[in-house]
């Protein structure tokens, strides 16, 4: 939950990526200023498979933006029906009475296995740095983070 919220907040804070605007012919462009609100209206019309009306079907371009995967229009066309099919199939769980059931985070695992939270030196430091695609000693180089807009 926290992860999802954090990502959504991040998406809201960053505008339309520069690269995607420049390469509109290749990457799917997320032009809508407010992709969430825009797509909700369109999605509601198509939604019929489940009984729970508050749940809307997946809006693939918006999900792709949230997940930071620049899909091509062809991929959106290919994935959308498949993803919708699977999400509809997930919907069968809505019909089960689970009111008095506690959620299980994982298998019955043991607790108290945490080690002391102390920093340790990793021996193979050079190998870690060698894996960095763009490294300019002593920095990991990335393009600019803030958008001009």
């Amino acid at each position, binding site marked *: *939950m926290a*992860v*999802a*919220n954090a990502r*959504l907040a991040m998406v809201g804070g*960053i505008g339309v*990526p*520069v*690269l995607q605007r*420049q390469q509109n012919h290749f*990457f799917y462009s997320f032009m809508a200023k407010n992709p969430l609100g825009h797509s909700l209206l369109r999605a509601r019309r198509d939604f019929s498979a489940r009984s*729970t009306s*508050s*749940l809307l079907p*997946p809006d*693939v371009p918006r*999900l792709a*933006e*949230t*997940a*930071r*995967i*620049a*899909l091509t229009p062809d991929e959106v066309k290919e*994935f959308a029906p*498949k*993803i919708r*099919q*699977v*999400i509809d199939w*997930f919907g*069968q*769980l*809505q019909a*089960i009475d*689970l009111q008095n*059931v*506690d*959620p*299980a*985070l*994982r*298998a*019955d*695992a*043991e607790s108290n*296995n945490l*080690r002391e939270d102390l920093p340790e030196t*990793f021996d*193979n430091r050079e190998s*870690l740095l060698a*894996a*960095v*695609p*763009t490294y300019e000693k002593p920095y*990991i180089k*990335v*393009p*600019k*983070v803030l958008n001009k807009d």
Partner: protein
Amino acid sequence: MLSAAAQNPGVLFLQRGGRKLNLQKCRRRRRHCHFQAVSSSCSEILTIRKSLVSRERKAVEIAQQYLNRLRNTEPLLRSFLHVSQNVMSEAEQIDRKIDRNEQLGPLAGVLIGVKDNICTLDMPSTGASRILRNYRPAFDATAVRKLRDCGAIIVGKTNMDEFGMGSTTENSAFQVTANPWNAERVPGGSSGGSAAAVSARQCVASLGSDTGGSVRQPAAFCGVVGMKPTYGRVSRYGLMAYASSLDVIGCFGSSVTDAAILLQAIAGHDRFDATSSKREVPEFTSQLEPAEFLDSKPLKGLRVGVISETLGDGVDSGTVSSIQAAASHFEELGCIVKEVSMPSFSLGLPAYYILASSESSSNLSRYDGIRYGNQIAAEELSSLYGASRANGFGSEVKMRILMGTYALSAGYYDAYYKRAQKVRTLVQKSLKAALTDNDVLISPAAPSPAYRMGEKKNDPLAMYAGDIMTVNVNLAGIPALVLPCGFSEDGPSGLPIGLQIIGAAFDEAKLFKVGHIFEQTLQGFRFVPPIVDTDI
């Protein structure tokens, strides 16, 4: 309750009669086979150990034999993404140790394949993903380090569905692996390369990982033994995370003994994985007695539950009859066999896919092209992420990340992720109850034998449905052993069928014991694909 064939041993005998010729052929061959087992356990690991200790053979000879077979069969099978350059030099080191009369580890000179999502220091580890092409980890996974500490030779990295997402190994970014029994068919997945490599005797044993059946289903498709241990039994340190609450490292071998020896080597607590258990690891192999020491009812009183939902509609008839024959075989061994109904069984499948895709959407966010992996240059950071991930991930991975992103979205979390977690509670309770009334549960490992390549590639739900036999075990975190129990049909076109034996948490020892006795007493089948016969 069981079918007529299962109730009537006479019918069973007739069914197996057709295999008699094969058995004789098998015995004839074995006389000339280097790996003729000293005991009837047919353990390749113990055979290698005996021949090394007795100085009958050298580690380099054994390694060369496997490498030759690997080179001969690899153009057809494509099980490996990378083959180590150090196999012969490591074998020479073992031979020098023997010359100096030094102590040998339990896996000395044993060639082991490692699934490509398990990190190895001296070899690429890509998870069969383009985003990690040529990636070399800075450390060995704990399981790999433990294998090396036992003297094992890591022969290479095996092919898989990208990051474990798939059931056929067709989702690898690099190559498609063929089933050694029939090269037009899939080896299963996601650990398809590890299963095919052991089946074709390209290596002695292998490591895989099992999030929803990724060790057990390919073991069944390739006719080898696969062990999915209890969640927490083996450290996940160095295993590329797919769905952390479900992932376990598992073992493949050509016999139950080999799978047990392998698990023995890798099990136990690890300070680098807080979910790894501190429970003591029992001696798995001490209970595995050779067939000649078994009495006529070696499993007398063992309560075996056949999960009735796993033999219903939609399950291949050859699979059903093989499992019923296995149930009847357990009765002959003295077991009390009953049917067990588990109404929540089918709910486990959508719950599993919700949990796995949700966790994967979070886990795979680490592949952003910044600290490691392949980067697509861009002028702005989020474009770099988007382009690197678009270029690096395959379709199935993209779709699962998107589905998981959807299921975890604000407002949808309760409807999907939380409900799936509640279903996990139901599944855990029902399996626990069934394992209180029964010592073990049995089912097929997959609803059908290996199917044709491409058959389910464009139909995700048909593909996911194939995991119905295995996902509940992951949701409950309990162990299960898969071993071959029959063939889909007589004759050379027959494909192996896998029996799944499910046990209580941390009771792998019982599974090995039961599986071993089953394996030793099952007559008339030989689970070595014809491709191996040509050079053994």
